[in-house]
């Protein structure tokens, strides 16, 4: 029997519970989430235990009262892109559809730690997009104005204002990329990526969701044009509805249902330095130099750049991209030169043909896709889960994700923030 309406009595996290447990040697902390055996059937099966899948399950239970949900994860939850991203959260978009959706997500971020009773360390330290020419300044103005008119915070900074906020940035006029100014979103920032997965998992689990790790979906069963369940490395699991939420593996999962997607999987790398005392307060991105940089709470400087620019499922990239990101970083922040790279890694991005995600129904009944997140799905995590849960629960999109359908490509309603066209690697 599915435990409908079931809410597990979880130990609330607080200073007090921490103190109480300290006295007993922390021996009484319960599991953050259970690891149950999969049942034979669920009302909803979510494939993919990343932030989006877990958030979908959480909001299905919380907002739509659907508790008979399993999240199937082929490895360990949060081990996909959720666990390997540069954690930038922002809603600084030009196009309305994006702006509305990401702003909704940002608002959810703002109360997420409390909502989940798990500190996801959402740190609104501001995100600055640097402009290096007047032309870029103009296009950032266009974007910032669009944000403001959409009710989103945005501030245009001149060079001196950038310098004040980022003292170690090379703002000299003779720089290869002289800083002309920047667009700041003060409410943007970073969050503790793993905690997002764990927090959603714990909160979903508390509402009865089964989180099943080491369970790879290997097939999707379709009968009479409607989904009936999934085959997994742990056997067949029946499902009333199935949500595919697997980021870089979207194409593979869709193919199991005979569907081709406007998606290519590419590897994106990120890297950290050794930990340092605070030296960078804000998140900085530079389109011209192709890199973004921030400092984590633990003290590492965290960097990312462009894709490796070829299809890949390897979760690792090559040295030329690392070299280029590091060159860009040293060029903009000369102080980095004597710091050291501690670790590099990669994640598999589901790059779409217009750079925007797909959240909606697929051409198989009761089969849904939440994917195509490209570089930018971490910030979408709560918003995506929220919209996806709505879509799955009601079998129709919420107005916020209605523009993000799969058929927009064939109908021409592209949401192409960069204007790069049907070239996934260029978004």
């Amino acid at each position: 029997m599915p435990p409908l309406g079931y809410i597990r009595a979880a130990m609330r996290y607080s200073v007090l519970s921490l103190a109480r447990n300290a006295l007993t040697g922390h021996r009484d902390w319960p599991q953050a989430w259970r690891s149950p055996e999969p049942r034979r059937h669920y009302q909803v099966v979510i494939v993919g235990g990343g932030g989006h899948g877990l958030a979908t399950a959480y909001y299905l239970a919380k907002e739509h009262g659907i508790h008979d949900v399993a999240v199937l994860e082929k490895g360990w939850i949060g081990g996909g892109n959720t666990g390997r991203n540069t954690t930038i959260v922002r809603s600084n978009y030009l196009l309305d559809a994006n702006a509305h959706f990401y702003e909704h997500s940002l608002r959810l971020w703002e109360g997420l730690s409390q909502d989940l009773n798990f500190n996801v360390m959402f740190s609104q330290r501001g995100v600055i997009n640097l402009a290096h020419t007047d032309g870029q300044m103009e296009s950032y103005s266009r974007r910032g104005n669009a944000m403001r008119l959409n009710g989103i915070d945005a501030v245009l900074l001149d060079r001196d204002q950038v310098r004040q906020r980022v003292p170690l940035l090379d703002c000299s006029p003779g720089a290869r990329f002289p800083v002309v100014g920047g667009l700041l979103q003060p409410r943007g920032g970073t969050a503790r990526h793993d905690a997002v997965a764990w927090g959603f998992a714990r909160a979903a689990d508390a509402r009865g969701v089964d989180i099943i790790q080491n369970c790879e979906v290997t097939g999707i069963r379709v009968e009479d044009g409607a989904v009936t369940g999934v085959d997994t490395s742990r056997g067949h699991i029946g499902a009333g509805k199935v949500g595919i939420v697997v980021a870089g593996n979207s194409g593979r999962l869709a193919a199991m249902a005979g569907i081709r997607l406007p998606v290519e999987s590419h590897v994106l790398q990120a890297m950290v330095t050794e930990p340092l005392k605070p030296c960078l307060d804000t998140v900085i991105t530079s389109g011209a130099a192709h890199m973004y940089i921030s400092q984590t709470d633990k003290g590492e400087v965290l960097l990312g750049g462009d894709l490796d620019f070829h299809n890949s499922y390897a979760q690792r990239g090559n040295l030329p991209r690392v070299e280029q990101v590091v060159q860009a970083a040293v060029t903009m922040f000369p102080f980095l030169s004597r710091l050291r790279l501690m670790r590099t890694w990669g994640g598999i991005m589901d790059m779409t043909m217009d750079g925007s995600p797909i959240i909606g129904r697929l051409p198989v009944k009761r089969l849904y896709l939440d994917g195509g997140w490209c570089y930018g799905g971490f910030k979408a995590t709560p918003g995506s889960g929220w919209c996806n849960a709505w879509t799955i629960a009601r079998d129709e999109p919420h107005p916020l994700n209605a523009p993000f359908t799969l058929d927009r490509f064939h109908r021409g309603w592209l949401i192409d923030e960069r204007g790069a066209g049907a070239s996934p690697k260029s978004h």
Partner: protein
Amino acid sequence: MSQPFRAERGGLVDRERSLRFRFDGAVYEGHPGDTLASALLANGVRVVGRSFKYHRRRGIVGAGAEEPNALVQLAVGARTEPNLRATQVELFDGLAASSQNRWPTLDFDVGAVNDVLSRFLPAGFYYKTFMWPATWWMRYEHFIRRAAGLGRAPRAADPDHYFKRFAHCDVLVVGAGPAGLTAALAAARSGARTVLVDDGAHPGGQLRREPHAVDDQPGHEWAARALEVLRGLPGTRVLTRATAFGWYDDDLVAVCERIADHLPEPGPHRPRQRVWWLRARRVVLATGALERPVVFPGNDLPGVMLASAAAGYAHEHAVQTGRSAVVFCNNDSGYAAARILHGAGVGVRAVVDARGGGGGTAARGDAQTAGAEIVTGAVVSAARGRGGVQSVTVQDHDGLHLSGSPRTLACDLLCVSGGWNPTVHLFSQAQGRLRFDAALAAFVPDAGRESVICCGAARGLWALDECLADGERAGREAAAALGYEPAAAPARTAPAPETAPTMALWEVPDGEVRRGKAFVDFQNDVTAADVRLAARENYSSVEHLKRYTTLGMGTDQGRTSNVNGLAIMAATLGRAIPEVGTTTFRPPYAPITFGAVAGMEVGRDYEPVRRTPMHDWHVAAGARMQNVGLWQRARYYPRSGESMADAVCREVRHVRETVGIVDVSTFGKIDIRGPDAAEFLERVTINRFHNLKPGRCRYHVMLREDGHVMDDGTTTRVRDDVFYMTTTTAAAGAVMSHLEYHAQAVWPELRVHLTSVSDQWGGLAIAGPRAREVLRAALDGADVGDEALPFMSSREVTIAGVRMRVFRITFSGELGYEVHMAADHALTVWEAVLDEGRGFGVEPYGTEAMAVMRIEKGHVVHAELDGRTIPADFGFDRMMRKDGDFVGRRALGREAFTDPRRRGFVGLVSRNGRPIPAGAHLVWNPTAPVPMHTYGHVTSTCYSPTLDAHIALALVEEPAKWKGRTLYAASPLKRRSTEVHITDPVFYDPEGRRARG
């Protein structure tokens, strides 16, 4: 100055010379051959840093890359460098280092309060608190950030130079220990192009830490000689102080060579470090093994060290890491350490061996030599002391629990050997699989790439004779696989002691029930209790364990902690170790400076600059230059006292009223020829070309296959089968590739050849009412009249041997010409035009004036062609060919592309004389509450000196409906909004009379 812990004899240091150095302000002495760590130890400095979380006093644990604790900040000023492992810093005279993560001093550190509060700060405590009040996170975080981090970043730019370098070889051998040396010798002697790299300053690896003889020579001398031999073999390269830090696809191994880190400064023109991008056909990994500590309470006290490290300091540096030692081990290598320590004058009280049967015969002999008591079947259950180890508790155990009565042994040094982990990092990076070898109690290489071969201790062989032979085998195998004939293997003599097997011991039993922290990861302060907490809370996947507790996430990447951590997790869960598995090994093997990875392409050299033939002229003329992609272009030519706006207005007026010239060399230029050239052009543009007459030009528009405009330009039919296309500056490269793709891949049957001639031709445009006169004068009176050269036509003229193409085209809307001339003559022609045209008043103008004039004319550039626009948005559909196929055509019929709400191209005129803000959006009422609907956006804006009005180009939905009406151009960012009148986008001379005149 005395070095109280320097043994009287022995060691591979140069006692004849002394080097002075500072640590935390105090002055000490050491010798060439010392590392900072050995020199500190020689001087009796045992506490060298504070730990990451609890700020506990920490001493030196290891002797090389494995060191978790002894991280120091080196030097001051621009050359300061944080987080260096003292064990790998070679001593030089004048070296200055300081401890990290303490305030105010190493001895008295306020952060140590964390240690007192530590019971409230278990792994992951921050996920459970700091949530109230909700808005306070940023405040908590401020303090968390200040407490975290280790060293300090430099503030200044780095004065040193770095280079990268590509290299190729048949066989790359990583590691110059006994195995690596024999492998390299075998490969090189068989004729393979061989490269040998080693992390250390001297070859020998473990041979420098142990008094073993090879071929009856002291190990280090044998190694030095082997290196000499290698250096003498043709085609062989040896790099020392060189860390192979990453394996990449197709066996590209990245190696960082520290050329000058052992010197105070690199010296003029000398690089500090160099990264080698080594492409190898075979990679031999002889990376050795790293010793592992054991987890027990108090195991982080200064004075608790790895046995091999203590032995290494004794043998290599003649340093006594204590006066009175206890050795605690689960394998034979601890006994050898005891003997070596004894040899350096350290008293060894006991060898505590967890194995019931104790060590092999050789091992027992070692302990006897050292005069140490052998305690078998026992463990060190705790270490105690203030500021350093003062005593250890020794107790029997039965595998699961402690037994018998504890015994306390006083000592100031506890040498621990918990077994050895083969250094499998690069093998794993190379997609090799690991296998847990229960007999060795370690992960060893299993299946891997054919091209990657492991040998020696890296493969779990511990005996020296085996390592030597295995290296030889690997080197021969690598060479033979590439078709080289291996030379006969030399016979080698080396000790082959009989050893007793290692016992798996990760954590001393019953650790959980006793007080005192038992550390797994020293650097990140992860304890055994933290690992168990993670298990309890179901962070039990090894990857969750890592991320929840930060185990293995420090600068040492868990070299001494990962295996113990996962083994404790396995024990807690009751699973087998292979089931738990390891985390992923990632580059870099050891931290590498950004400077080295970046090489020389940083700062101003991050990207090259492209210059037009007239570049230097513009600079000399005082032009303000502007980056446009890689190009630099003259933006405007200010006269003294002029602002940019003044200068641009003057330049515009001058063109409109008289005549000006502008450098347009940056346009892309493509020679398209062949019998099918016209057909090809029709397929890649929306235009018709079959009917274009030779000598005529046509404005062309190119689409992407998804129907959006990709680029525009002009294409001229030079001859029947020769066309000359120009592209925009920004899209030149992309257009060339796009055309090549279609010519080579889509329509290979078309007989057409594409040649980029962007750099063959310099370009200048002459515009203004007097353009023709100027041109005629400059072209030695060539006929450029309306008949010889009508609008949208072109001709080739050769004057004094200078070949030029003159085009009657205009961007400004004035009577205009473009002249393209062979690039090496472009400056000459440019100067000639200015010279000959002086009488007509010709003056240069920049890209900014050009931009203003094109806005006045309603010409589109990339601000409008933003990748989201289609031909119909600009009315280009009128020039679109009605028949036939071209790239993008089929995508144009889609619903959204014909939707009446699509934004179309319009002009805007400010109604109140105020500027139309850049980046503004068009709204009905700028003061209405947000979010509000926007009807369109401004794409380009300027003050038009010609019209004396602020004008702009924009895209607006339902343009036909809005034309003639007003909206607001709102820029909330600048708190400005301007009421604008919506007009046709061509503000100036809409009939085009001036251009045709």
